[in-house]
């Protein structure tokens, strides 16, 4: 139907459309494939994988909040060996575009993960999650300090080789996001994923104790969307040539367009999937209609449109 070029690029890689899943909100795709064909969206961003299998935190791990939720999973996952053995071959078989998200406890671990993934066929990019708030020591969030953020991205760059684009996933819980973004771009990141969850807390007034077993958790959902829009806008203004994968409370095509106008080259759908299994698919269709309605013929003309002079 459309005269719209809906494709987008992250580094050297092209995606058929700009709607992705968000890491940690789509597992490795299998669960969602019952509800829509995974090939219909731009890419599946898999749940951040670590070197070893990880049990994660105790329950309760979830608290619903107004237009949002807190989660405190603690990066539960099977570890890189099982992931490469089971999840990647399945995704490749589905012909889905895959962005693998990685998380490490140390700079070295990120390097190990990059080395394991460098020659795996069927991967389009690497998301380097340096901003998960649900780690034992909040001081270890690499994305909260330009030096540690740089160290991780340099380690990944050294180990990944030339082809695979690196997308650094940053935390909104910093004073100067532009400084951190600049640091990871200098260290070799091809793109940025903005934003991870914000650290939050809920206290149950019946038990008078924190609701989550891990006490704090990451806030996501529409409640955080204005924060995402502001951060994407600021970072795109400072680094207009660096592609941004935007995320944060996108629940409709309109919401996706908002992040794109702020400067996102692609948009990940996260928490919305919990409420609607085919959210990413619906949002892709809604966004396509909206762009056509607004007269765009090339999706890329909409990226950062809000920055342009009147």
């Amino acid at each position, binding site marked *: 139907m459309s005269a719209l070029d809906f494709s987008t690029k992250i580094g050297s890689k092209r995606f058929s459309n700009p709607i992705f899943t968000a890491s940690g909100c789509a597992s490795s795709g299998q669960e969602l494939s019952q509800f829509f064909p995974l090939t219909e969206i731009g890419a599946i961003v898999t749940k951040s994988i670590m070197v070893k299998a990880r049990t994660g935190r105790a329950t*309760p791990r979830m608290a619903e909040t107004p237009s949002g939720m807190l989660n405190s999973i603690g990066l539960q996952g099977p570890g890189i060996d099982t992931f490469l053995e089971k999840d990647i071959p399945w995704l490749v078989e589905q012909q889905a575009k895959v962005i693998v998200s990685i998380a490490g406890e140390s700079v070295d671990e990120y390097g190990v993960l990059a080395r394991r993934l460098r020659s795996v066929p069927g991967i389009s990019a690497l998301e380097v999650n340096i901003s998960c708030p649900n780690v034992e020591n909040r001081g270890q969030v690499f994305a909260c300090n330009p030096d540690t953020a740089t160290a991780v991205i340099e380690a990944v760059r050294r180990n990944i080789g030339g082809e695979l684009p690196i997308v650094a996933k940053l935390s909104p819980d910093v004073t100067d996001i532009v400084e951190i973004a600049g640091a990871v771009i200098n260290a070799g990141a091809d793109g940025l994923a903005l934003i991870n969850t914000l650290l939050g807390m809920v206290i149950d007034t019946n038990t008078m104790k924190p609701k989550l077993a891990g006490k704090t958790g990451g806030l996501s959902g529409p409640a955080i969307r204005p924060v995402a829009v502001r951060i994407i806008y600021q970072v795109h203004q400072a680094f207009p040539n660096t592609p941004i994968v935007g995320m944060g409370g996108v629940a409709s095509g309109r919401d996706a367009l908002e992040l794109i106008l702020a400067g996102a080259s692609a948009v990940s759908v996260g928490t919305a999937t919990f409420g609607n299994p085919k959210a990413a698919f619906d949002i892709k269709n809604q966004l396509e209609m909206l762009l056509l309605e607004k007269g765009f013929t090339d999706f890329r003309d909409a990226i950062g449109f809000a920055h342009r002079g009147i």
Partner: protein
Amino acid sequence: MISGKINQFASQISAEVISNKKVGPYHHMVFAVGDMAIHSKPGNFVAISVGGEQSSQILRRAFAIYRALDKGPMGGSIELVVAPSGQGSKWLCQRSIGEAVDFVGPLGTAFGIPTVNANAMLIGGGYGSAPLFALAELLKNKGCRVDMVLGASTANKIYAPLEGKRSVSSLTLTTDDGSTGIHGQISEAIPRLIREYGTEVIYSCGPMGMLAAVDKIAQEFNLVHQCAVEESMACGIGVCMTCVIPIKHEDGIKMVRSCIEGPVMDGSQIIWDRKAVMDGL
């Protein structure tokens, strides 16, 4: 146990309310669901959007299926017993006949049915009794003896509709306040009943504390115990990883999703002691 493709029978549909009746503190609701009823088995659940399109409640609510009929007068239907306890369930209970509600289902594991006739005891706490009546019917049709034990804090919180009673060989009630049936906690009555009825397999559904107490008894009597667990859940389809249950594993503890590997699980595999879980993580 899960087999085959994850969520393989699940679909997302708009389900019309065809009946909504208040029964004690609960609502018995019937929804027209078409083919969703065909694959719905006792133990499965549905995840429902609440609050309407502009709602600030962004997560689905999970409800155990009370009964599914694939060829009712309105086509396929699913029945639920809803306790209006939180904002979401209150909203659902306020739906009128003809209104549409967004369903995802059927989800999760179902109660396993013995391959040979066995004496089954079905234990339900509060509205946790909901999925047990369809199970009772299934077991009775297979030729099993079905003894049902339902407990709650007080008499009107026991959900035991007349038609449900037809499928059981015996029905025992317990209340914490003694307002009906045996005075005391449900778990106190179980050992005597197991001996009396020659129970060989236990099915349970209700609050986690009750399930833990029932499992302890099941292990003492060396009985198979299938329980439907409950944990805070965001998605119901296996992607959020919030609804996990700790089970025994060679390396210590494994967290499995109660929406995929559950809600019906083997009670003997679950680590019920919270302190052991906290120490083991």
